């Protein structure tokens, strides 16, 4: 299998050593602990709550119904009693509607998922979303309106610090492959490709053992961020370029994260809804771990379970260091898309003092989407949304390479992210004008 690579990208320090060798540990449910379950843990419409205050729920019980086409079901992560329907802190939107459940002492049983004849329906029933971080409802992705010839499994895990996918690939190798196989059969996809970054030699070896029996191609990926970006991965493995503004579907490809495949397998074979996931807890914590954690567990509890902070914490990040979100408080609950909890002390953090852009062009060199961040930054500062649209800001994948490499510490990716809403308005107005 030839490897084509992709343009741009950066090589941050990977810092995966603290957890890459640690087997996944189950974080037990604590009686009396409160689990805050947001109704919007995915891209799309928030789920509609199905429970009332003081209602008893069983783990795995449907408590939030997918509302609309792009939405996902939410299940009770633990058995217990609903103590409140109230807003919960959210790392991005600040607040989000949620259901708070107090765990009871009886946690042995998890209600099974209703396995349907139709594969996509089972996936919907299990509340599965993309676990790589984008949290797009998987049943939608698995209902392609056109022919798909390749299923690409994303085992890049290019974000520094994170090792949750790495551990899953080692410990659940065959289950992941079986999950991918289920998808392949259901959608009648010819090719299965599994891409894993070369720095995970043990995972490559583990998958290699199954390559012939399950008939897939294993591609060792260059160690470069953002190798796991959907469009970059497709370009690197298949040399296909997803047209701007389009989905991978356009070039006949569906990309799924390895964790998502495992969730699909668990749903179909074990009737297990998505109520827990593996999260890498690392950085300045006493015992860095890869933890299997129930959705809704507050970040504080997870950190406590890892022995607490090491030194004085200054920044807590949910997700990876390149694309994750800094938390303002630790009541934020663990969600389906949470791949990491990283703790940084003052001394671990870079100096973010900004100065003027010196037009060095490093952002241009590293942008995997071929954009010119330094010029776009001027447009952001001046709120020139028309120009931003012309310079293709909507093609930005917010990977953060530009900001990472900027010697003047400009807030490039962050500025593009926040400008997109205004740019959307510009584009809509243009569209309206074109159509008279």
């Amino acid at each position, binding site marked *: 299998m030839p490897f084509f690579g992709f343009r741009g990208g*950066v090589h*941050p*320090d990977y810092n995966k050593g603290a957890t890459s060798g640690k087997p996944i540990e189950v974080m037990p449910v604590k009686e009396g602990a409160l689990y805050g379950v947001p109704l919007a843990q995915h891209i799309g419409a928030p789920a509609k709550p199905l429970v009332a205050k003081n209602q008893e729920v069983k783990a795995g019980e449907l408590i939030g119904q997918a509302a609309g086409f792009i939405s996902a079901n939410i299940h009770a992560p633990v058995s217990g009693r609903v103590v409140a329907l109230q807003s919960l802190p959210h790392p991005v939107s600040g607040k989000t509607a949620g259901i708070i459940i107090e765990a009871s002492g009886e946690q042995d049983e998890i209600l099974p998922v209703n396995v349907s004849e139709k594969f996509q329906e089972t996936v919907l029933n299990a509340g599965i979303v993309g676990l790589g971080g984008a949290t797009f409802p998987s049943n939608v992705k698995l209902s392609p309106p056109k022919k798909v010839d390749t299923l690409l499994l994303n085992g890049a895990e290019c974000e*520094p610090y994170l090792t949750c996918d790495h551990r899953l690939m080692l410990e659940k190798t065959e289950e992941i492959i079986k999950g991918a196989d289920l998808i392949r059969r259901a959608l009648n996809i010819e090719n299965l490709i599994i891409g894993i970054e070369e720095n995970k030699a043990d995972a490559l070896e583990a998958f290699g053992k199954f390559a012939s029996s399950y008939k897939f191609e294993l591609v060792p990926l260059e160690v470069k961020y953002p190798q796991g970006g959907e*469009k970059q991965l497709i*370009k690197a493995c298949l040399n296909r*370029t*997803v*047209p*701007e503004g*389009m989905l991978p579907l356009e070039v006949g490809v569906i990309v799924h994260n390895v964790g998502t495949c495992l969730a699909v397998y668990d749903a179909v074979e074990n009737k297990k809804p998505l109520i827990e996931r593996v999260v890498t807890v690392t950085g300045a914590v006493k015992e860095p771990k890869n933890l299997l954690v129930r959705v809704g567990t507050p970040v504080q509890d997870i950190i406590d379970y890892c022995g607490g902070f090491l030194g004085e*914490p*200054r*920044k*807590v*990040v949910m*997700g990876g*260091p*390149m*694309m*994750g*979100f*800094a*938390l*303002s*408080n630790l009541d934020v609950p663990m969600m389906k898309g949470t791949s990491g909890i*990283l703790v*940084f002390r003052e001394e671990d*953090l*870079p*100096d*973010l003092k900004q*100065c*003027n*852009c*010196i*037009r*060095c*062009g490093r952002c*241009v060199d590293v942008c995997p*989407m*071929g*954009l*010119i961040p*330094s*010029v776009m930054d001027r447009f952001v500062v001046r709120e020139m949304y028309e120009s931003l649209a012309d*310079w*293709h800001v909507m*093609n930005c994948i917010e990977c*953060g390479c530009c*900001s*990472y*490499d*900027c*010697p*003047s*510490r400009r*807030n490039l*990716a*962050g500025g593009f992210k926040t400008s997109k809403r205004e740019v959307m308005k510009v584009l809509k107005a243009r569209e309206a004008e074109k159509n008279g």
Partner: protein
Amino acid sequence: MADNKFLVSFSPHTRDPLTTDKVMMFVVLALVPSILVSVYVYGFYAVKTYALAVIFCLGLEALFLKIRKLPVTVRDNSALVTAVLLAMNMPPSPPWWLVLAGSFVAIIISKQVFGGLGQNPFNPALVGRVFLLIAWPAEMTSWIEPSTLKSGFMFDAVSTATPLGQIKSEIISSGHIVSTGMADISDLFIGTVSGCLGGDSAIAVLIGGLFLIWKRIIKWHIPFTYLATVFVLTGLYWLISPEKTLNPLQHIFAGGLMLGAFFMATDYVTCPMTIRGQILFGFGCGLLTVVIRLFGGYPEGVAFSILIMNAVTPLIDNYMRPASFGEVKS
């Protein structure tokens, strides 16, 4: 319950260790070989000129920012780079007021009035040089004979002409080159010819330039296309009429071309950011330099060429935007 205990900022939360002040320090570091050669060749004069330029440039920048009540950002080291390059672009022993005038034009007129770091359309050191060249042509072309460190400390400098200047005046007066051995390749390479304070040593500039490319501070595209363009075009001219110009190797080693190609044309602020833009920029610089050297009144042409190309940099950046990933041509 906003808790100020935790720092909240946009991702990414990790950054490349390279910062702007370090970038500028790398450039100064890369200039060290050239500085050492000039001190070796011109001794005390060199030390004095560098010192004056550094004091004036940094001082003026700090003063201007203080007056404007802006944060004093002298520690970003950009004024230091300008100071060293300005000194290198002056004759070896300029009077102190000439250095002050050059520093004022470079730092205040060319950089700070446009908004400081990153905002200047033209390379400050070159604007300083060109201003001085036009305002005080005699002082700016009073070359002294290169000597060793020892004799340099004695104030017995002999005035002389630069190789390019000598040849230019010979061609203007008699139509062809008269003197021979004026621009010996090894002299040009090592830097034991008369000329500006710094940059006459091709090897020293080359070491610094390659260091910057190796450290990924600059890309090779501008220096390479610049030098290659000059080499090819002067080479063609030389093949046709060898009596009227130096050979192409002498051309690329002589004068400020090497320094210009590696250190001034590559000035981030004033050169294009995309690779194809940089290739066009380098070619433009080369073409203009050759035109000025062969057909213009000035023997050099590097400063003018780069400044003219600086002027078209925004245009190049605007019209040579590469296609973004998966861009569909409409």
